[in-house]
């Protein structure tokens, strides 16, 4: 019981995730700044932001649905933290696993986006509502390619469990190289999920102020931002587990270092993506996702289907 609580709350649970996510936010912001020829924030900036936001007043708009408005950040945070426990990190075995946890993780990672929509919708402000509709429109564009990209490696491994999948690729490392298209698709979809340039359409500040989060302030905004930071880390861990399943044989400490390096690489790739691109329009984004990203994911699915048929026979 005590050990389980320690796992849940301290390591690798909430506290570790909190520190790790904010550290990764720093890496992302610093890289983004350096790539833009700026100095960038000091290492403690994300922590300082979190503390400062937490100390600020929470303002709930008069016409907003107060219960929904307050609950949504907590929901978002709970969903991403839960998803983390089913992802293999420094060993091929996740903290918890069962057959079909892949679907659960993908589902849990969709919840934050839904909470953004509901939060924006229940804020009843014009900008929030436009942001909310954009969030949902965008969700349908990147979610399907992401599902297909992550299911393709699962097909090859012939399992619905993330841990079993990692064990399979750990034993057959060469097969992981076949999932390159899926890796790129998943990276693009994760960028969309995190609502960052070029897919920051739902919170495009020059168009709709803060988008979904226009009415949020204080602790509630801090929780939302923490949820997004953790979502970035969890998303990066998921991609690392599915597409980069190497280096599990180096013991606990070595495995941990390799895990951090993998997450760093993915975070750096995402930061690079948002440095070199401009924000797309919503219809351009949807067209891009359905005409380019989805066919690429389908191609990966097809390759893996044929391969798994060849392997089994």
């Amino acid at each position, binding site marked *: 019981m005590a050990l389980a609580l320690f796992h849940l709350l301290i390591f690798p649970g909430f506290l570790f995730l909190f520190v790790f996510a904010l550290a990764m936010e720093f890496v992302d912001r610093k890289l983004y700044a350096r*790539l*833009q*020829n*700026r100095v960038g924030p000091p290492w403690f900036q994300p922590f300082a932001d979190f503390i400062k936001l937490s100390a600020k007043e929470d303002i709930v708009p008069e016409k907003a649905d107060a219960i929904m408005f307050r609950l949504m950040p907590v929901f978002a945070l709970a969903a991403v933290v839960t998803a983390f426990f089913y992802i293999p990190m420094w060993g091929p075995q996740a903290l918890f696993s069962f057959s079909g946890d892949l679907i659960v993780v993908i589902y849990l990672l969709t919840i934050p986006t839904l909470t953004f929509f509901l939060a924006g919708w229940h804020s009843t402000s*014009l*900008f929030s509502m*436009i942001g909310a*509709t954009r969030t949902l429109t965008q969700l349908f564009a990147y979610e399907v390619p992401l599902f297909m990209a992550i299911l393709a490696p699962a097909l090859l491994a012939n399992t619905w469990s993330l841990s079993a999948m990692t064990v399979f690729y750990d034993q057959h490392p060469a097969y992981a190289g076949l999932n390159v298209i899926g890796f790129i698709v998943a990276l693009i979809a994760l960028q969309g999920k995190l609502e960052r*340039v*070029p897919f*920051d*359409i739902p919170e*495009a*500040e*020059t*168009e*709709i*102020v803060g988008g979904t989060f226009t009415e949020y302030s204080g602790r509630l905004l801090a929780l939302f931002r923490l949820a997004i930071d953790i979502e970035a880390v969890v998303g990066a861990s998921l991609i690392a587990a599915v597409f980069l399943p190497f280096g599990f044989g180096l013991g606990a400490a070595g495995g941990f270092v390799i895990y951090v390096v993998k997450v760093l690489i993915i975070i750096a790739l995402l930061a690079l993506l948002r*440095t*070199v*691109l*401009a*924000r*797309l*329009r*919503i*219809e*351009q984004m949807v067209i891009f996702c359905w005409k380019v990203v989805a066919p690429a994911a389908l191609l990966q699915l097809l390759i893996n289907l044929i391969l798994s048929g060849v392997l089994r026979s």
Partner: protein
Amino acid sequence: MANVKIPIGPQHPALKEPESFTITLNGETIISMDVRLGYNHRGIEKACEERNYIQAMYLVERVCGICSHSHSTCFIQAVEEIAGLAVPPRAQYIRTIIAELERIHSHLLWLGVAGHEIGFDTLLMYAWRDREAVMDTLAALTGNRVNYGINTIGGVRRDISPEQLAGLLKTMDVLEERTKYYIEVASQEITLIKRLSGVGYLAHEDAVKLGAVGPTARASAVDRDIRRDDPYIAYKDLDFKVITDTHNDVYGRTLVRVGELMQCYNMIRQLVAKIPDGPVTVKAPRKIPAGEAFSRYEAPRGEDVHYVKANGTDKAERVKIRAPTLANLQSVAKMMENNRLADVPIIIAAIDPCFSCTDRMVRIHDAGHGRQETLSWQALHTYSLDWHRKQGIDFKALNAKLSRRMKL
């Protein structure tokens, strides 16, 4: 979704100054747009009439923070014309150098703002970093980064040393290289082209009909530039091309501005090579003889027009300023048609608006009742005194007290 009215402004992250655009949307598509001006009225024209010409010149320089030299030169040209002053050639060259440096810094600033409006913050950071080179040069030549204060009636206040001219040429080389890089980015970066081309379409006929000026008009193939058509200061001695474009959209406006940057570097090189020796100022009378003059100037944003009427005293009788943004605002409504909400910031930004330069009146608008009224200067004065009296502040007593203190 039924039609929704979205307020862009008076306070909005996309706008650098308060101005109100009410946009009617159907889903994400713009149906119509309504502009309301008047949040920045500062009464500069009236204030000019209460000051002598030198003071008025400094005031006019503060009409705009970016094209400050444009306004002060435009105003002073009118005053010098009335007074019949012959400005020494060296002073005219110095004015032209500052004018072109100002255009460079304004266009680089615009490039950054345009990048920010389409969510391309890297372009903003790069363009503004390079803009620092111009700002530093301006500070070295005039003493100030903005509001240079180099003009005076009858010439300029500071001479430029040969070392400074050499430094200027070096800066131009650096900036030319950077600008070539931006041209490369503008012609290759896919998301940038996707966000800019076809957005804010303004057909050639519409640009002519709505009286668009500057880069906005030139991007719709309106071949009009005051520097060539009605040369002032030293422009008649310079060899340059007027950049026009046939894209008719925001992408065209970007290309025109970047193209103009390349012309600016060339012009500054010519100016440095040709600058004559001699005095930089002639003595100007304090009182300007009665008369009137009309002056045109190609500011970075387009044609700037000043009208000055003198009555023989040391103060102007009437000063009228028409900033380029006013001429371009009418075409914004046309550009908005059939675009998306996402394009609103970049379409507004593409005319390089400067609202505080434009505002010439305040209109009281009662949002609750839709009642509108215009106040005269006298009425506004009385209203202000009455309002303060109601708050318990009586200026009569205060004025009496102040004048008593002054006597002691």
